[in-house]
């Protein structure tokens, strides 16, 4: 044990005293802060855009504006519903009042500076600015509604923002429908009344009678939190494992190229050496997680003292979800086994290589294969019950990242145990095989070409293997 600890300590101190470690440690919080700041900055700085409608009369301009009003009203309603949902579980409920008027408009109608597209061109190209409620700006779009049945023309220099164009299409449909009803001598008010009697669809979650009595039927954020958290944990596991196992690869290559193995192996047994190395990088993993956890805790405490309780409720829900035994235990087992499985593979690869370039030839295909769990994670975001995720999670190399995604869908306990067992058995097999490869690399100086020869010996017909050189 003492020698394992000594190897662990040397490697661990070596890792955490390197600049790369501190950069990696700082990267996540910095990126999180940067991402949040940039998101907020982008949202707050997206300018209101001017558009103009050229038509006989004002039917289209009025209908487009009505469409935008309805959109803002829907958004206000959704925001209020979310805060109500959070308040229902908060100790001190407080409503946040959101109205359509409090949501700033994204598009503002202005009087047309010309009647034809040639007259409007300088404003649309930004060569001239038009004065509106937000000051002088270029004209974002012009909608020309010709008489008769000819198509409506939507002119803009921007071809990526389609929101205004969609509102024009909806407005046209509404006006056409209204005109149709009028042509049929039906009062437009009747159409409006018919629209008003359309009912909302309320999403509800089926629960037991006891649960229903205490929490009600409506879908709340607390119902969705486990899915969000499992996706977050899966991403985190993937990120953690693949950010730290590179350390093992580099360290092993360094020991091989520095020819330290013989000195080490007369002081430390090979399994002890391997255990110390794996423990050191796992220690680095825990240090990173702990540091990020402390950063998160600091952000949480700061938020708890300054933000409204409703704003902090999702964080509480996330923490409560994390503490769920099924999620917590699965996450811990997945982290440990996933780390061991991939860690020893990288140690084995490193023990066969003298340079990073050599290692790349073996690592690159492996890394490409391991992008598949990321695809599966993205599937889960749209459909947590995806059959694809269920199937792929049985593949032991992917189980560490995908099983956690299935926990919120409450898969059968036997299935979870079977997947964990399969993952454990595979980890043991990989550990056994990787130790043999590590021994071949560290003790016998085997290289990639020897590994290729071994494959040739194992798989008949691939050619004759050459002998291992002595001494």
């Amino acid at each position, binding site marked *: 044990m003492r020698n394992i600890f000594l190897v662990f300590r040397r490697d661990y101190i070596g890792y955490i005293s390197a600049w790369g470690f501190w950069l990696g440690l700082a990267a996540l919080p910095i990126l999180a802060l940067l991402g949040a700041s940039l998101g907020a900055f982008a949202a707050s700085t997206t300018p209101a855009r001017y558009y103009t409608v050229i038509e006989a009369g004002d039917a289209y301009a009025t209908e487009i504006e009505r469409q935008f009003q309805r959109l803002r009203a829907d958004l206000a309603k959704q925001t209020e519903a979310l805060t109500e949902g959070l308040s229902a579980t908060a100790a001190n409920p407080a409503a946040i009042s959101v109205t359509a008027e409090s949501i700033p408009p994204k598009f503002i109608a202005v009087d047309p500076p010309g009647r034809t597209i040639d007259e409007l061109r300088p404003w649309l190209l930004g060569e001239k600015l038009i004065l509106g409620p937000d000051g002088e700006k270029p004209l974002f779009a012009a909608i020309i509604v010709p008489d008769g049945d000819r198509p409506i023309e939507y002119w803009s220099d921007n071809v990526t923002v389609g929101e205004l164009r969609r509102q024009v299409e909806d407005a046209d449909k509404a006006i056409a429908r209204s005109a149709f009803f009028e042509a049929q001598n039906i009062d437009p008010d009747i159409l409006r009344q018919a629209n008003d009697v359309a009912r909302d669809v309320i999403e509800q979650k089926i629960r037991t009678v006891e649960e229903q009595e205490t929490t009600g039927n409506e879908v709340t954020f607390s119902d969705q939190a486990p899915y969000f958290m499992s996706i977050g944990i899966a991403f985190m596991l993937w990120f953690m494992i693949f950010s730290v196992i590179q350390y093992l690869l580099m360290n092993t290559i360094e020991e091989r190229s520095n*020819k*330290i193995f*013989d*000195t080490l192996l007369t002081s430390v*047994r090979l399994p002890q050496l391997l255990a110390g190395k794996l423990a050191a990088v796992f220690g680095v993993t825990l240090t990173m997680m702990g540091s990020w956890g402390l950063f998160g805790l600091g952000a949480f405490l700061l938020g708890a003292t300054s933000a409204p309780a409703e704003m902090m409720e999702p964080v509480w829900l996330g923490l409560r979800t994390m503490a769920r035994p099924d999620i917590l235990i699965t996450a811990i087992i997945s982290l440990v086994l996933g780390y061991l499985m991939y860690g020893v593979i990288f140690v084995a690869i490193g023990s066969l290589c003298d340079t990073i370039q050599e290692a790349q030839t073996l690592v690159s295909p492996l890394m490409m294969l391991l992008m598949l769990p990321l695809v599966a994670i993205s599937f889960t975001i749209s459909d947590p019950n995806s059959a694809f995720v269920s199937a792929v999670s049985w593949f032991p190399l992917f189980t560490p990242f995908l099983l956690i995604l299935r926990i919120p869908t409450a898969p059968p306990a036997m299935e979870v145990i079977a997947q964990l067992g399969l993952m454990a058995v595979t980890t043991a097999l990989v550990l056994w095989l990787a130790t043999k490869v590590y021994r071949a690399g560290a*003790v016998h100086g085997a290289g990639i070409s020897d590994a290729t020869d071994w494959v040739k010996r194992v798989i008949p017909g691939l050619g004759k293997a050459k002998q291992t050189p002595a001494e």
Partner: protein
Amino acid sequence: MVAHPLVMKNATKFFGGFLAVNQMSFEVPNGKIVGFLGPNGAGKSTSLRMALGVMNPDSGSAELFGGPPVPSSLARVGFLPEERGLYKKMTPRSSIAYFAQLKGMSSREAHNRADELLKTAGLQNFARTKNSKLSKGMAQKVQILSTLAHRPEFLILDEPFSGLDPVNQQELEDLIRAEHERGATILFSTHVMEHAERLCDSIIMLARGEKVFDGTLNEAFATLDRGVRIELSSPDFDLGVTLAAKGYRAHRDSGDSSETEHSVWHIALDPGQDAQDVLRASIETGAPISSFAPDDARLRDVFVKFAGPQAAKALDASAIRDEAA
């Protein structure tokens, strides 16, 4: 205390179909300096690695301090491998202390010992310099100090002189003598016979994975014939043929080249034969003699005798490669 810190019994090792070491048996007596001699590829490093349990023999065994090489017995051994290196980001002080701790020393004791050794070796000013910034010679010294740090009872040095300049080779010879005086048993491998001649009590010679000689230096020299060495100013004169006619056994030096402007001949003296008679007989044949001297027994000749001229050439090639490196 065991009489023999290391006993190899019929150790055999294959690499694939290649027989690297064949039926290797020898004993290293306690308190002696033993040379493990042979050219590159003779099986020296493989034998030493089997002795230390780094790799297991396919058959036979290695006994270290009376038992298999286990952590407790390995802690009593200091091993300097042929392929040696240091962690580049560590310092000499932390490197020496780290390896000493792996051998069982406490942290404080190991660091104190590292300071002491670095001071003795004149490297105290580089104690906290990163290994990557040391010169090659300094790095080799640090590696050797790491081997000695825990005051081992048994030192195994695999090609310790390899890559060292003459000054550092001399320092290492002194260090080996000092460790021997301290009471350590020393086994070192080399393909340079002169080091063994100067340092060893006994020698083990290897060729093609097999032991060809095992004994003291005196026993080794006793295997050679008494003789004289005659140098001729012409490379073309065949002294062997002319002396054979007079009943003498003569052979041309195996290191001699036909491209040189002289030739060296060794003449064995059988019982009853005299050096003066050989000189007289040589003069009578008209040989262009440029020097005549009693033939000093050298380990290289012993090696040639037991391993054959091909192995001797391999030995010379190893020395040339080492010098080039």
